[in-house]
């Protein structure tokens, strides 16, 4: 018995022996490793690509406060023939060993995306060091600029920031997608992938605030030296004020125009806002059948995309259409079951029907709006509004973008016996002529903490 036990112990140890392999050639001290949390891919000037590594200096995480000094994140860019070449070259000047085990985000610039994403994407999709869940995005402008602008406010760790933004089902303004799904889509050609759109915020409001900050810094510096006269100080300020008031007027005008069309017609980088974090993730980029950038969709369109896909838990919705008294309505939508799709082919034209059911919680109603009397009117109003906008967006994908981003083709596969019968080229032609019918069913469920928000009940 003792002999058998001895044998069993020895054998278990032997079976587990290869586990100790990780402590040999693949051994790395954590402080010697720099975990790359994001990668940017731009077009290079001298070489094919400019690859940006956003890395974490693990040794700085413990002690640092948020700020420029001691910040645990660094961005380094290098021009190289391909990704592996960039890694090898980066290791020649970075002391730490680059590890991609914790890479959360891969950003491709729009220039790279326009030339086709097949090649650069495959560097990452085929590399086992990257997580299969790594997020991908396309940046308006340079990917390096975007990564450099990431300054999370509520968390010191950009890795956490990426997780919270790209993975959350509450993020209604971006599509939720990862590198593996994109790779499968590109390989099969059965759906044209979409990417979250990212950019550096360049809104006037943000720029003005930054200009103000800079001028305050300058003033402080000047105050200390005490060299400048009062007159010379007042002139530029007055000039700035005039400019600011002019831009305010033009802003008001443009924002009024915008709000009359739609309150969410923004692309990443255009949102009028002020924040220390200039990185903006809003809207989506749509690939063509040739895997290059075909179009960008606004925040509102991305919301419709998520609705049709059923990729959301709950989303806020402000109705642009006014009530009879000219007040806006804010509601919260929850999907009631998964969207239902059906496709019928008639004379080589796909007739696509999409059934969407939502539950609605009212968040804000004008005091003049008599909810108790107008509940069904509100439901109808929402149904009409959503039906129209979603249908418009669907036609846009088929006629303007010519991209089957919803993967309707996949639903037609049931009709065929084998892959020999499938014809993606034919589907591409058919999809351009597709007829869409959207059936939206809205049921009002709650009205917040008030039974009726109208004055006098």
């Amino acid at each position, binding site marked *: 018995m003792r002999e058998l036990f001895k*044998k*069993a112990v*020895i*054998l*278990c140890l*032997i*079976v*587990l*022996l*290869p*586990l*100790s*392999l*990780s402590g*040999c*050639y*693949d051994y790395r001290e954590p402080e010697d490793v720099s975990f790359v949390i994001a990668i940017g891919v731009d077009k290079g000037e001298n070489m094919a690509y400019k690859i940006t590594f956003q890395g974490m200096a693990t040794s700085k995480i413990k002690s640092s406060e948020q700020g420029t000094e001691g910040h645990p994140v660094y961005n380094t860019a290098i021009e190289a023939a391909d990704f592996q070449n960039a890694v090898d070259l980066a290791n020649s000047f970075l002391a730490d060993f680059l590890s991609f*085990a*914790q890479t959360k985000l891969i950003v491709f610039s729009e220039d790279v995306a326009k030339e086709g994403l097949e090649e650069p994407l495959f560097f990452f999709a085929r590399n*086992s*060091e990257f*997580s*299969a*869940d790594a997020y991908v995005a396309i940046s308006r402008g340079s990917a390096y600029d975007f990564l450099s602008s990431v300054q999370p406010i509520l968390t010191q760790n950009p890795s956490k920031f990426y997780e919270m933004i790209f993975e959350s089902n509450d993020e209604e303004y971006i599509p939720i997608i990862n590198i*593996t799904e994109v*790779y*499968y*889509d590109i*390989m*099969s050609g*059965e759906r044209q992938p979409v990417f979250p759109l990212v950019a550096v915020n360049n809104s006037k409001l943000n720029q003005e605030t930054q200009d103000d900050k800079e001028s305050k810094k300058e003033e402080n510096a000047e105050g200390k030296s005490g060299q400048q006269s009062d007159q010379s100080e007042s002139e530029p300020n007055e000039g700035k004020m005039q400019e600011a008031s002019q831009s305010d007027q033009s802003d008001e005008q443009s924002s009024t125009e915008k709000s009359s069309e739609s309150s969410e017609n923004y692309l990443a980088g255009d949102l009028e806002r002020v924040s220390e974090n200039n990185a903006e993730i809003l809207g989506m980029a749509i690939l063509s059948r040739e895997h290059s950038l075909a179009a960008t969709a606004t925040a509102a369109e991305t919301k419709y995309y998520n609705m049709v896909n059923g990729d959301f838990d709950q989303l806020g919705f402000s109705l642009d259409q006014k009530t009879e008294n000219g007040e806006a309505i804010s509601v919260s939508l929850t999907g009631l079951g998964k969207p239902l799709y059906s496709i019928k082919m008639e004379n080589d034209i796909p007739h696509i029907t999409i059934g969407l059911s939502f539950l609605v919680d009212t968040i804000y109603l004008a005091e003049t709006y008599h909810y108790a009397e107008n509940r069904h009117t509100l439901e109808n109003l929402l149904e009409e509004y959503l039906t129209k906008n979603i249908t418009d967006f669907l036609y846009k994908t088929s006629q303007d973008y010519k991209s089957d981003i919803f*993967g309707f083709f*996949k*639903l037609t*596969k*049931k009709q*065929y*016996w*084998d*892959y*020999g*019968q*499938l014809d993606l080229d034919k589907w591409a032609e058919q999809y351009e002529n597709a007829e869409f019918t959207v059936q939206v069913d809205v049921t009002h469920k709650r009205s917040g903490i008030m039974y009726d928000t109208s004055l006098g009940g």
Partner: protein
Amino acid sequence: MTKNETALGTKEIVCILANQITVKLYIGQARLFSSWAGNAAWLLYLIGFLCQIGIFLLTAYIYKKDYDLDPIDLAGSEFGRAGELIVGFLFLIYVLFSFSSLTRLYVEALKAAIFQYSPVWYILLFFLISVGVITYLGLSTSSALHVILFPIILIMMLLICIFSYNRVDPTNFFPIFGTGIASIASKIPESMGASTEILFLYFFLPIHNGNKFPKKAGMIALLIGGVSTLISILTYILTVAYPASTQYFLSMYQISRLSLLGKILNRAEDLFEIFWMASVILALSIKLWLIVFILKKTLRLPNDKPLIWPVCILGFALGFFPVSLHDTISIYESFYTENLRWVIAFLPLLVVLAAKIKKKIGGKNHAGTL
């Protein structure tokens, strides 16, 4: 090994055989089936599996009276030394090829997935020590290890499949016949070979502790191995869209990367390698035991222990010819999986049939002379 030294029960036989059948999943069995039939890989496997059950039941029926003779003994008893040598040589080629290819492909898989900076020879050294020592300690200890570890390995495999539910795309199931009925039909023999390892059972006959042919143990092993392989292939084709499904050399690893477990526990997919590694080491130790067993029988050697280490080293070395992994995979697929494996699946049936016919003819002649 004689009946006195080692006695295998039903439990041990089931675990050993089922592990031999499922271990191929870790070297890309799902990908291979997908490359043959597209998204109908599950259908092709199912057809091949049902054929293999049919062959096994037929062989078991004919074999039942010779339940204490392995195929080499059976060939020797009816066809003399020549029969022993031919049958022994054919089985030896099959097991040696199976041993070398599993070694090479799994070690390369480990390198690609986890030990990217370790040289292959170094990983191989650890495997060589583990496999060699387990085989040296004997079949009884190896079978005991199978009984302990195989259920855990199986549970982990099913857990990966269950936790991949979030990545399952039901549209990947269509078109139902994948690359076409013709391509499925043409690959049925090859797919039948996916459970050829059931023939190891015939070599356990002299050391089986029962008094009849262990048909029940064989059937249970086939069902456990076959059904778990089928579930894994189905999960693979539903999570990895065709034609990307024909690309992943490490198909099971790819499923584990996509599973929810990998998401909850960050990069947990590498953890599964522990169980796969155990499965491969156990499978290799049984293959090594069988090679040595066949050599001892066919060459009529008095002792098999001195052969273990040289054969182990030779088998591992053979795995590295040719040097290019791509060439190895090509040879593995074109020679082993597409030809040798399924042909060998019929060998026990052919041996027992030939022996029966010979007996019958011999009996008639004997009756005639009387």
